[in-house]
């Protein structure tokens, strides 16, 4: 149960993009197409997972005085590994993401989780934290990219799939493809959208509380009615 909580916190309650507001630079830059967002999300999750595992394993070995340079060395090494693997096996994606792959080194989420979580917890907890944060970051990035690409370009770019209309990986949205809302492609549109989504996430606890309250009232009324009915039957 604790493990599940460790995993899910990164997706909702401590979502790095919408709640903690970390890693906004790549979010603004890469969220112009869904496929870029997915690529960046997977790459950042891999680096986050590997760095969390290593930092958790080495927490007793890394001296306090040099912990930040040590974390940076570990993170930068994994980023370089991802960069080389992408250039070798996913050339087009590597070209598309360009300078943002090396810049994962300075993604605040990764250094933030190393400092705030991995160096204080067990390896299994660090793995769950990394996966949760990684999935949360990927989902957030993908949601922003999906809205921006759909509204700003009138398309949704997936991987090329053997499905009619998706052979080239691009789904065109009728109406929007001919007259898109261009501001969503610009960084200003991304900020606007992130602000709106952040507002929605801020409202989530309130919506949840209202929903629970309404449910309780409905259950209370139902049980009162049942009791009344039982009373009537008794008479």
């Amino acid at each position: 149960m604790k493990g599940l909580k460790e995993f899910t916190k990164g997706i909702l309650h401590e979502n790095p993009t919408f709640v903690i507001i970390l890693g906004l630079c790549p979010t603004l830059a890469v969220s112009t197409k869904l496929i870029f967002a997915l690529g960046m999300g997977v790459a950042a999750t891999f680096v986050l997972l590997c760095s969390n595992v290593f930092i958790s394993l080495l927490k007793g070995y890394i001296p306090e005085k040099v912990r930040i340079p040590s974390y940076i060395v570990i993170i930068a090494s994994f980023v370089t590994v991802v960069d080389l693997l992408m250039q070798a096996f996913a050339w087009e994606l590597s070209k598309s993401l360009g300078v943002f792959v090396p810049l994962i080194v300075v993604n605040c989420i990764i250094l933030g989780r190393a400092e705030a979580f991995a160096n204080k917890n067990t390896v299994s907890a660090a793995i769950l934290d990394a996966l949760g944060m990684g999935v949360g970051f990927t989902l957030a990035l993908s949601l922003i990219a999906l809205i921006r690409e759909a509204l700003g370009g009138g398309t949704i770019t997936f991987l090329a799939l053997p499905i009619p209309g998706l052979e080239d990986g691009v789904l065109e949205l009728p109406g929007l493809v001919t007259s898109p809302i261009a501001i969503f492609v610009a960084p200003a549109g991304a900020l606007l959208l992130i602000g709106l989504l952040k507002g929605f996430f801020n409202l989530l606890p309130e919506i949840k509380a209202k929903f629970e309250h309404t449910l309780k009232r409905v259950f209370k009324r139902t049980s009162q009615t049942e009791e009344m009915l039982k009373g009537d039957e008794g008479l």
Partner: protein
Amino acid sequence: MNQALRELFKPALRLFSICALAALVLGAVFELTKDMILHNQQAEERQALQRLTQDGEKLSERLKVMPLAIGKAEFEEQLLPRISSDKARELLHKYYLPEIDSYRLRTPLVVEDIQKLMQLFTELDFENREPVRGCYLVKQEQELIAYVLEVAGSGFGGEMKIFVVLTRDGKVRQAVLTQNRESPAQRKKAEAEGYMDKFIGRRGMSIPTIKSMLTQAEADAVSGASVTFMGIAQAIRAASLWVLAVEGNE
């Protein structure tokens, strides 16, 4: 060793061991991936070169280019001792004239000697540190009609590689951006259709390298990717100036 020194050494040694392990891992991954990365880069370059040539034109192999100037020490201590043939040494002395601290290329060059000098520098595996790094000679019916120069430009994400086709009078015929690490938005602008039109037909110093040299529409089109534009433009201008110098149209 006193306590203070030990406290300094211990973290330093541990940090060093982490760095050493990281270097080992990176070395292993590089060894595993380098051939595939090279293959991908070469495939992309081949595609770009195919787009740049017209019907009836033939491209030479990639040749290394002769620099417009070489440092005196490099010329005398590194380049000359590696040349075994007298003819090659003669060719080099014919075109490189000594100045105070360097050897400068004497231009214009005889057409036949352009290829000979390039072949010599290719054989010597000479890495030019000037923006123009490589050259493919474009020939039609055995006659040299243009150059495809491989030029390095400085972009937002580091060095960019640009192929520029130039006619022998230094005019830009076509250009294409290949290897680069620009951001997706900057890259999209630089790869957009018609992006290179602002350079085509121009030569030398008339090639725009700053936004004030562009029309309003052209300046708007590069807005938000100014560093990329300047990197590409300066590289294209360097390529044109190189051809003008070699061909003697300065």
